[in-house]
C-alpha cells in the first residue's frame, strides 16, 4: 500500500519539478514549485515525519515561495524570450554530464544499498515515536542536545533579515 502511494506521489513530484524547469512563464514555474512542495510533504507523511511535512508546507511552500512570488512581481518579469537563442553547446554538454552522473548513480541506487550497514541501531522505533509524537521527540532533543545549532540558526536568521534589508535599501 505504501509502495503504491510512494510511486504515485513520487511521479507527481517528478512531474512538478519537470514543469518547473520547462515552464516558459515564471509565475507558472513558481506555482508548479508550490505543488512540488505539496507532494514532497506528502512523501514526508508517508515516512511518518509529520512535523517535517508541516514545516515544509509552512516554511517552503508558504514563506519561501511567497517570497519568490513577491520578487517576481516586483521585478516585473516578462515572458521568457522565446525568440530562441539556442541553448549553448556548453549547457548541452552539462546536461550530458548530468545524465552520465545519473547513469552512474543508478546501479548504486538500485543494487548498492548495503543493508548490513544500515543497522537499525537507534532507539526510535515506530511505536515509540507514535507514543510520544514526532514533534515532541524532536523538540525534546532540539532544546537540549541541539541547543547550540538552534541558537546559531537564530543568529543566522537575524543576519539574513538585516542583510536583505541592507541590500535592498535604496
Amino acid at each position, binding site marked *: 500500500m505504501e509502495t503504491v502511494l510512494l510511486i504515485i506521489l513520487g511521479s507527481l513530484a*517528478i512531474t512538478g519539478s519537470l514543469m518547473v524547469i520547462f515552464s516558459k512563464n515564471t509565475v507558472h514555474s513558481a506555482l508548479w514549485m508550490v505543488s512540488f512542495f505539496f507532494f514532497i510533504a506528502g512523501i514526508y507523511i508517508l515516512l511518518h515525519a509529520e512535523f517535517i511535512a508541516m514545516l515544509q508546507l509552512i516554511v*517552503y511552500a508558504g514563506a519561501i515561495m511567497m517570497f519568490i512570488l513577491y520578487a517576481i512581481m516586483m521585478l516585473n518579469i516578462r515572458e521568457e524570450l522565446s525568440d530562441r537563442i539556442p541553448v549553448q553547446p556548453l549547457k548541452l554538454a552539462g546536461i550530458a554530464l548530468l545524465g552520465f552522473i545519473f547513469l552512474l548513480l543508478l546501479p548504486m541506487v538500485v543494487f548498492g544499498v548495503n543493508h548490513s550497514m544500515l543497522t537499525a541501531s537507534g532507539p526510535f522505533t515506530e511505536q515509540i515515536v507514535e507514543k510520544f509524537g514526532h514533534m515532541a521527540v524532536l523538540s525534546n532533543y532540539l532544546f537540549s542536545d541541539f541547543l547550540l545549532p538552534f541558537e546559531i540558526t537564530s543568529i543566522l536568521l537575524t543576519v539574513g533579515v538585516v542583510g536583505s534589508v541592507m541590500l535592498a535599501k535604496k
Partner: protein
Amino acid sequence: MAEMQDINLYLFLSAIMFIIGAAGAITRRNAIVVFMCIEIMLCSSSLLFIVFGRATRTFDGTFMIMFIMTVAAVEAAIGLAIFILMYRKTGSIDLDKFNIMKW
C-alpha cells in the same frame, strides 16, 4: 521494517529530483527559476536525510532538516535581495548577461 523494502525507491526518487534540479539550474537563464531549481536540489537531499534517519531509527536526519530549512529560508531572502539589486543595476535578471568577468 517496511521502510527497508522501499528504500531503493526513495533513493531513486531523490536521485531523479537532484538531477532535474541540477539540469534546471544550469540551463535556465532566468535567475529566479535557477533559484527554484536549487531549492529542488535541497529538497532532494532533505528527503535522503529523512529516509536514512528512518532506516537507522535515529532522529539525526530530522534535526538536519531543521537546519537545512532554516538556511534555505535565509538564502532565499538574501538571494532575492541580490536579484533586486541586479535588476536595479542592469534592468534584467538574465544570467547570460552577467559576464563582465569574461576573459
